[in-house]
Each structure stands twice: as structure tokens, then as C-alpha cells.
């Protein structure tokens, strides 16, 4: 992880175009979101396709606090995270209590996100309805004020911020080693886990809450970075799906899976849109869809499982005289 952070810090100093930096920020953003998603949905195996609800709750909370009370987003994001945790508890507790698993949990999560989406539109007096809200633009002269308001003119500071978030996210996941093991055990066999003294509901709820908290913080970053949110983009199905996609394609239930997925998918979508989006409408998303399907069929455990597969292949090949090169796979 240290090496990784170092590499990404080096990238910071490379003379990149603004857009390349923008893609890096987006990539790290999704790597962070995927990591948050992964905690509950990957390790504990409760597939949520409604995590955008928590992103939205976090984003709107910190934005409302900022625009009405000029509260710094740093505190706002904590507040947003806490509100998201409360919302998560409302759904997670009954879900786990009533043992909702499999597609039922997924559908419940979609329903929750839809409800949040509709309520954001309906509460237009507070949230601006479907037009969304803009972040009040504070022109700052000092770095300190920029930092307090988490508003910068260039991309670089955002890059550092999201790099930090992502690192913290990874670190939190990494540090939660015990809980991770518990969650995996619960995913694999709930009864067996309980018999070993693992509190199923407690651990699930911990995972769900941290997960919600993390993506809610991501929501605040989203606000500060795009300076504009609306229910469609922040509580919509696309965002939920994207979080799941980076994690699943990368390898859900692994520490680096979501990051790997984000580093593959996000630049890819951007590049596809950049090169093909203006030519034939729809071609880029068409290809993206095909890629997803192919990826899932051939790497059902995600890209993170690739080294294992290669190793297994190699082990088999080593028994035979010819030794195949395994580098060409990526």
C-alpha cells in the first residue's frame, strides 16, 4: 500500500493535462467508493445496488450545512456520514433482523435508493428538487480558507484530498482485519459463524454503517469537486451500479479489488466516451456493456483473481515441458 501511495504521489508531480488529472481524481473517487461499498457488499456478501442513497444523504447534508450555516465541509462530511449511518440503520437493521439475503436484499437496496431519489425531488424547497443544488462558490485567497471550505481552483488539491480519502479507506478496511474475517465467515455460512461466537447482526451492522459512512463522505467530496449535485446523478441507479461494478470487476471481497476495478473501468469509460462518444451516439456505452459481460463471464471473481489463476496455470504448465508466458493476459 505504501508503494502504491508513493506511485500515486509521483503521478501528482507528473506534467499531466488537466483532464488526465480529472480522470485520476474520478478514478480515485470510484476506488474509494468501491472500497466503501466492498466492505458490506463484498466481504459480507450483501449485494447493494442502492448505495447511492447514502452518497446522496452525505452530499446533501454537508452541502445544506455549508450553504445555510457556512459549516466547513470537513465537519459537514462527518455530519453527512452520521446521517447516512442513521438511514442505513433504518434499512439494515430490519434487513438483517429478518434475514433478507440474496436478490431480496439487492431489491430492497434499490428500493431504498429510489425512495431517497423521489424524496429529494419532492422536497424541492430544501433540496432544489430535480434541478439540484450548486455549491456556493467561495473565492478564496488563502490556502487555509480554501482548505477549510474544501474548494480549490485547480485539480491538484482535489487529487491529494481524494488520494488521502482513498488511503484512509483502504487503511480502515485493512485495519478491520478481524471484522473482515467475521464478515467473510458470515457470508459463507451464517449459522457456522454464529456457532463460533461471531455476532452476525452486530458485525453486519458495523460493516453496513462504516460502508454507508464512507460513501457518504465520498458524497461530500463529490459535492466539493463537481460543485453541483442533483438527485439523478447522486441518488440515481448509475452511481450505485458504478460502485458495484468497480468492486465486482476488480474483485469484490478483496482489499484491492475495488481499486483495481476503478483503475481499469473509469479511465476506460472516459477514454471510450472521449474517442467514440462524439462519433456514433451510443457506441461507447455499447462497447462498455460488451466489455462488462465478457469480463464477468471470463473472470467471475474479478481481476484480483487473475494472479491466482495465472499461478494455477503456471503450476500446471510447469509440470509440462513447455512453459507459457503469463504476462500477456492483462
Amino acid at each position, binding site marked *: 500500500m505504501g508503494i502504491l501511495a508513493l506511485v500515486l504521489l509521483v503521478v501528482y508531480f507528473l506534467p499531466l493535462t488537466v483532464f488526465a488529472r480529472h480522470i485520476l481524481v474520478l478514478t480515485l473517487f470510484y476506488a474509494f467508493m468501491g472500497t466503501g461499498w466492498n466492505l458490506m457488499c463484498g466481504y459480507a456478501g450483501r449485494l447493494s445496488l442502492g448505495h447511492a442513497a447514502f452518497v446522496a444523504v452525505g452530499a446533501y447534508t454537508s452541502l445544506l450545512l455549508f450553504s445555510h450555516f457556512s459549516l466547513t465541509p470537513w465537519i459537514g462530511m462527518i455530519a453527512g456520514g452520521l446521517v447516512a449511518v442513521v438511514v442505513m440503520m433504518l434499512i439494515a437493521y430490519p434487513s438483517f433482523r429478518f434475514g433478507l439475503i440474496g436478490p431480496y436484499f439487492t431489491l430492497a437496496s434499490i428500493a431504498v435508493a429510489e425512495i431517497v431519489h423521489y424524496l429529494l425531488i419532492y422536497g424541492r424547497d430544501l433540496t432544489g428538487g430535480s434541478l439540484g443544488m450548486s455549491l456556493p462558490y467561495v473565492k478564496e485567497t488563502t490556502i487555509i480558507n480554501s482548505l477549510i471550505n474544501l474548494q480549490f481552483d485547480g485539480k491538484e488539491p482535489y487529487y491529494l484530498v481524494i488520494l488521502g480519502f482513498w488511503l484512509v479507506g483502504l487503511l480502515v478496511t485493512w485495519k478491520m*482485519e*478481524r471484522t473482515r*474475517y*467475521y464478515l*467473510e*465467515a458470515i*457470508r*459463507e*455460512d451464517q*449459522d*457456522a*459463524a*454464529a*456457532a*463460533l*461466537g*461471531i*455476532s*452476525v447482526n452486530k458485525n453486519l451492522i458495523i460493516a453496513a454503517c462504516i460502508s454507508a459512512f464512507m460513501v457518504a463522505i465520498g458524497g461530500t467530496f463529490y459535492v466539493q469537486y463537481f460543485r453541483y449535485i442533483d438527485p439523478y446523478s447522486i441518488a440515481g441507479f448509475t452511481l450505485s451500479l458504478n460502485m458495484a461494478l468497480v468492486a465486482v470487476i476488480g474483485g469484490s471481497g478483496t482489499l484491492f479489488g475495488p481499486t483495481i476495478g476503478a483503475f481499469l473501468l473509469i479511465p476506460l469509460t472516459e477514454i471510450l466516451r472521449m474517442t467514440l462518444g462524439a462519433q456514433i451516439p451510443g457506441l461507447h456505452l455499447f462497447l462498455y456493456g460488451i466489455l462488462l459481460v465478457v469480463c464477468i463471464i471470463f473472470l467471475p471473481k474479478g481481476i484480483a483473481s487473475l494472479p491466482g489463476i495465472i499461478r494455477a496455470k503456471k503450476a500446471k504448465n510447469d509440470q509440462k515441458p513447455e512453459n507459457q508466458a503469463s504476462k500477456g493476459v492483462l
Partner: protein
Amino acid sequence: MAEKILAIENICKSFGGLLATNDVSFNVNKGEILGIIGPNGAGKSTVFNLITGFYPIDSGSITYKDQRIDGLTPDKICHLGITRTFQVAKPFPGLTIADNILVACLPKAAKVSDARAKVDEVLKIVSLDKKADVLGADLTTLERKRLELGKALATNPEILLLDEVMTGLKPKEMDDMMDLIRELKKTKTIVIVEHVMRVIMNISDRIIVLDHGQKIAEGLPKEIAENNAVIEAYLGRGAKKDA
């Protein structure tokens, strides 16, 4: 008289209309091996499920060291010191054997590293040390049994509830297992549900016989072997259970 560590009093449990456990009472004494026998469907596993909190009891009480434990969740009961194995072994299929054991060590370990340190030791006890990196899903039934026992041991329980751990073992292995259980008896109390008569008669300090959800006999192995009700209900049907 030995010190009573677990008291089961008048527990009843029914599923739908079927009375799975009907007014069963017995005590477990500290440091003993208590055998529970009975034909298939007699309610042996149900008793385990009730003690460990997987099913709520309909009536009656379960007391462990002066503390009522009926109504507690399985994980809390495990924390108090009662761990069970499952008749149909439940490995975590997606985890390696080492991780399976690690997960079991964790709840009672202060640090993850402590738990990790304990894994090898447990693996050796159940002779799975050579399979540490194999996934739980890829085990044979026999290995699953061993893993099941290993996981239960890893929680370091005071009372160990073993549900048919002998099944599937060869005579030599059975002897080893019996030695192991006798060894465990030095530090733990063991309740064992078993089919293999040779084992149960050899190893148990006391035996309880269940039939159709009711306790029909209780006593020393010798007494049980001579008990008419037991012979009629269980042993006397011409065929003994193989394993």
C-alpha cells in the same frame, strides 16, 4: 457428586405440529463426558440447537453456571463457553482451512496475531496442517468433520458439544479421536452425540438416551446397555448403526 455446570430443565420444542423435544431434563457435570444416543430423529441435534440458541425453546430453562442462557443468541452462548459442532459439517467454503480456523480463533483472541499464532496448533490437533491452503469447499467429508472439530476447539470452549464427530472415521482414526477426546476431557466438559456404539460406550461417563423427543433413560454406560427400554427402542432392533 460432581459439580453441575449445565442444567437443562423441562425443555420443549415443537416445529409446526411435531414435538421435537418433549420435556427433556438433564444435567451436565463439570469435567465429564456425557453421551447422548438415540435413533435418527430422536431429537439429539435439536437438543444441541436449543442449548446453543439456534432455536428458541418453547418452555423450560437452560442454566449454565447459575446463568439462564435460554434466549441468548448463539454467539453469546459461544462466548460464555459452550461451542458445538454441526452434524453436517459447515466449513466456510470460500475460505482456506487456515482461515476457517483463524475465524474460529478470533472471537476470543485479543489480537489478530494471537489468533494467527494459534491456528497451526489447532490444525495439528485435527491433522489438517498439510491442507492449510485448501479451500473449505474442496474438502472431503472426512476432512470437513475434522475441520468442524478444529473450529470448535479453536473457540476454546468450556463445554464442547460434539455432534457425530466419529462418523466416517476408520477404527484406527476412531481410537485416535477417542484419545483426543479423553485428552480434551482434562480441561473441558464434553457432550457427545454419537452413533458408533463402541465409541460411546467406551468414552462416556454417563449416557442419556432420547427417543421421539423424550428422554427414556439415563445412566452409566453399563446400565444403559442393560436397560430394557433402551434395548427395545434402540439397540434391540436387530441392527446396530454402523456409523
